[in-house]
């Protein structure tokens, strides 16, 4: 299948620190691409570059053939790229449904009338088993519920590329199953998912392809079993003496 999102040679440096160094990436509709690597290897920065949270120093990003490298964050949302944050970001004094409604109203595609946005948002929250918590504020939700609300906010803008930053981390065993089935269902409806994750069970189960980053560069890419056996990857994770 043709790639939906293509990034080529993305680089970003903060002062002297090169956080991402010439990384390319592509993902197709319905595919789950795993993005793994040790802490500080540049995974979140790469996600920020794709989502438009930060601008790359070099490289290009194409969405559906259109160059979006220069587009600001909100216009990339309207080009159907959205994300979740590693640490949940949700307006503290708004209810879950209001946050999701904002996404429905400003998202990609045809404009939804204000009166209908509430129903659409409620539907999204319902899909994620949150309908009964729709009127709660951030501090009235559990950690897992917050993560789900954030996903609903991202889905509200009708993305076709979804970047999940450690969305499955911190979940217990039973919650992990639920979370994984949510991600699987996203892919099943044709969304291209980029999954930054440390939970290897989830990566093995969900991803058709895995990309490994270390020190800002891509060091391996391929099917999960193959990549995770790769000596270089083990070295990156465990250090030289263990390899």
């Amino acid at each position, binding site marked *: 299948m043709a790639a939906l999102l293509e990034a080529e040679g993305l680089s970003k440096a903060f002062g002297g620190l090169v956080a991402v160094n010439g990384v390319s990436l592509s993902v197709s509709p319905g595919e789950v691409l795993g993005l793994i690597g040790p802490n500080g290897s540049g995974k979140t920065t790469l996600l920020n570059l794709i989502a438009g949270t930060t601008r790359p120093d070099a490289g290009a990003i194409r969405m559906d053939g259109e160059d979006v490298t220069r587009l600001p*964050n*909100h216009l990339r949302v309207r080009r159907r790229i959205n994300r979740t944050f590693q640490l949940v970001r949700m307006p503290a004094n708004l209810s879950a449904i209001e946050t999701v409604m904002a996404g429905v109203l*400003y998202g990609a595609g045809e404009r939804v009338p204000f009166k209908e946005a509430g129903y659409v948002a409620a539907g999204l929250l319902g899909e994620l088993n949150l309908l009964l918590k729709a009127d709660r504020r951030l501090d009235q939700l559990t950690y897992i519920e917050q993560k789900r609300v954030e996903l609903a906010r991202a889905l509200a803008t009708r993305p076709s590329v979804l970047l999940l930053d450690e969305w499955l981390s911190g979940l217990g065993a039973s919650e992990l199953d639920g979370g994984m089935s949510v991600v699987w269902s996203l892919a099943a409806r044709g969304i291209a998912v980029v999954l930054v994750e440390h939970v290897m069970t989830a990566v093995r189960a969900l991803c058709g392809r895995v990309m490994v980053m270390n020190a800002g560069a891509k060091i391996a890419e391929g099917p999960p079993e193959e990549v995770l056996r790769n000596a270089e990857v083990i070295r990156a994770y465990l250090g030289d003496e263990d390899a």
Partner: protein
Amino acid sequence: MVGEDKPFPTRAALAIGSLVTLVVLLAALPWLLSDYGLSFMVSVMSYLVLTVAWALFSGPTRLVSLATSAFFGVGMYTVAMLIKLMPLYATFAVALGVGALLAGVVGVLTLRIAGMFFVIFGFGLSEMIRQLMVWWEINKTHTMGRYVFVPFDATLIYEHLLGLAVIVFFVGWQLRRARLGLALMVIGEDETVARQVGVNVPFAKVAIFVVSAMFMTMTGALMAPRYGFINPNFAFNPLVSFQVVIMAFLGGLQRLWGPALGVIPLIILSELLQTEFPFWFSVLLGIVFMVIVYFLPRGVTGLIEDGWKALGRPLELQRGLTGPLVDAWGWMSRPIILPRGIAGAIEDVWVKIAPQTKGRR
């Protein structure tokens, strides 16, 4: 929030009916009040529009605008400059355009960047325009002050201001039911999230800033005929910005009607201060404001809401007056907690003092 409550159409009708009655009553006031009462109501109405317009922008975005007097002054001085050249209503229209343009330029320049720049820019804006106008009038037009003599008396000014107030409330009310209003709330909470739901953050801020500034400019324009003689020092008075901020904070920003609650008390206070202690006016106003900032961060609205909640809460005496008595009896009849006797107590203290010696049970 989801959809509308339709089971009580009578309730909506009641609300609309009472609002219409209120407006009609207010509209009839000029014929019921003395001259002094009318001039009081003119200043109430003008500050009402200014304060609610201020809160349209500063409420959701949480950016304190100190530029109110700049827009108010622009409205007033534009009318004063043009009154000999064109009909009154035409001057109003021009003033509105100038105010909107100024707000657009200021907004585009400062609202893209950190909020700090916007606040600072607004802080000196009115003073800068005043300087420019003084210079212009002295060197280019050789006039120091302008006369506005038009058949537009206090009653007419009041009725126009009332109309403006109705519009500003309507806009504020509609905003709570609109895309832009929700976007502004998200922006005020977290701009990163706002961008991530697809909101064009700078555009939304500039848009509401322009709308808010247009109401302020219009108020200034309407007030011009109130004063026969206007010079730049009079039109661009920094105290206007200050009073509007105080009124809004006194009233509270959580509700649309909140800022309005701050207007009347402060105008009464101002009148009192200005007649009783004219020299102390600015000092006392400053103190009042600092008291609000330190002790009433949610304003009068907050107090009312707390009071309302306290009234609505069930009294915590479900077990009746006997409840506390039962508790007290239970407490008194509880066995004294010294099962190990005084020796036990000493032992506990000893264990604490000398942690290395394991206390024997």
